[in-house]
């Protein structure tokens, strides 16, 4: 007899205490809460973000997290076919939810800057501290710090994608949603794995087909003394499927992906394993990257 055991989803409030005020501290708290290091309300722990129930719990946490910014958390539910029609015959379609919030401009602008990263983890029992609780912490930090700006000429959308680890299903659905909206998308910035710096050079890897975005990242990184390792991609016929960044390229958006130096071989060796824990995150590196991205997005939304 095959029996499926599923943990019951706790319905209480998850974020029962205020996050710390200091950026480094609240980043640690968020990553700790998302990777099972810290317990949430009603003794709930997010040990992994792989299964449906675990992602459901994470979704609730992320909604509460977005609410702490004083903005409404929205849920983008989607249903997508399997990649192989043969699998469609046997199984149900993908179902999931992207969680997003909009930090509005201060001048009723119709321009939007999207900051996105996935919230699911790659394998059963993988806590996903670096992959990709760090990306979520970075995006949250940037939104929190930029919410204090007196003047924002563009809306900032923060979005946490579901099912990146399953053929980028969540971000594909979100890209289709963006195409339907009448938003004027200035640029999309995707963050995946921002917590490993084995050679302590503070370098950040970026990949994009948009020259202006690469130059902007490079110039601000240069001012801060942060090395940038860039990969220029050709959007024509682009057909890669590694990270959320990849799905926005064929749609024709100005998109840039950033994170630790995955393609330059300075990346966590614990990806998709039970060892991708809180303890392996280089918080100093995460903070350095966060400050860089904050400056870049600030430049974009204030110009």
């Amino acid at each position: 007899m095959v029996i499926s055991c599923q943990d019951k989803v706790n319905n209480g409030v998850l974020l029962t205490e205020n996050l710390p005020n200091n950026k480094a501290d609240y980043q640690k708290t968020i990553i700790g809460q998302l990777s099972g290091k810290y317990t949430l309300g009603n003794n709930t722990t997010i040990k992994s973000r792989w299964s449906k129930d675990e992602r459901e719990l994470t979704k609730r946490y992320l909604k509460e997290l977005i609410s702490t910014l004083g903005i409404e958390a929205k849920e983008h539910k989607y249903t997508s076919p399997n990649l192989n029609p043969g699998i469609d015959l046997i199984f149900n379609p993908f179902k999931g939810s992207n969680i997003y919030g909009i930090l509005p401009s201060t001048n009723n602008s119709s321009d939007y800057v999207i900051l996105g990263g996935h919230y699911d983890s790659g394998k059963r029992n993988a806590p996903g501290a670096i992959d990709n609780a760090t990306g979520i912490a970075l995006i949250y930090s940037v939104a929190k710090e930029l919410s204090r700006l007196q003047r924002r000429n563009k809306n900032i959308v923060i979005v946490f994608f579901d099912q990146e680890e399953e053929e980028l299903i969540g971000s594909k659905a979100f890209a289709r949603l963006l195409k339907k909206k009448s938003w004027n998308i200035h640029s999309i910035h995707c963050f995946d794995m921002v917590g490993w710096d084995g050679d302590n050079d503070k370098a950040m890897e970026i990949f994009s087909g948009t020259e202006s975005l690469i130059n902007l990242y490079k110039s601000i990184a240069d001012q801060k003394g942060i090395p940038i390792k860039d990969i220029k991609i050709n959007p024509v016929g682009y057909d890669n499927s590694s990270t959320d960044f990849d799905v926005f390229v064929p749609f024709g958006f100005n998109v840039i992906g950033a994170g630790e130096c995955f393609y330059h071989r300075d990346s966590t060796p614990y990806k998709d394993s039970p060892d991708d824990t809180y303890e392996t995150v280089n918080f100093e590196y995460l903070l350095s990257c966060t400050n860089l991205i904050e400056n870049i997005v600030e430049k974009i939304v204030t110009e």
Partner: protein
Amino acid sequence: MNTTQRNILGVLKKHFVYTAVLAISLLFFLYKGLTYLIIGSYVPFVLISVVVMLFILSSRKSEKSFKKIITTWGVLIIIWSFVRLLLSIVNHFVKPIPESHISNQLGIYSFILSILFLSGAIYLLKYKRKLFNK
């Protein structure tokens, strides 16, 4: 509707359980096909449409042809159930399937559904001859 179709319909009316099992199996896959069609995948809908068309066309031809299509449909459902049951067993006892989306569909409800469809298909095949015996 020709005479053969009227005869087949008459037989099906007399055997409510058999007809219900056949109809439920077809409606289940028709619903699945329509669900996928709405989200942009046409293969399941095409497949079930072909099966329904074969049922309609065979019913116009002869009872023998209609029985053949029931056999084909029964075998297809057995394959479908068997694959799902096999994957459930592999997922739980041999090697867990790494895809959350698939693994999530191989729980107890999926197991029961597969068993029900397997039983239904065996029933369709077993009582097919009895159905048209005069």
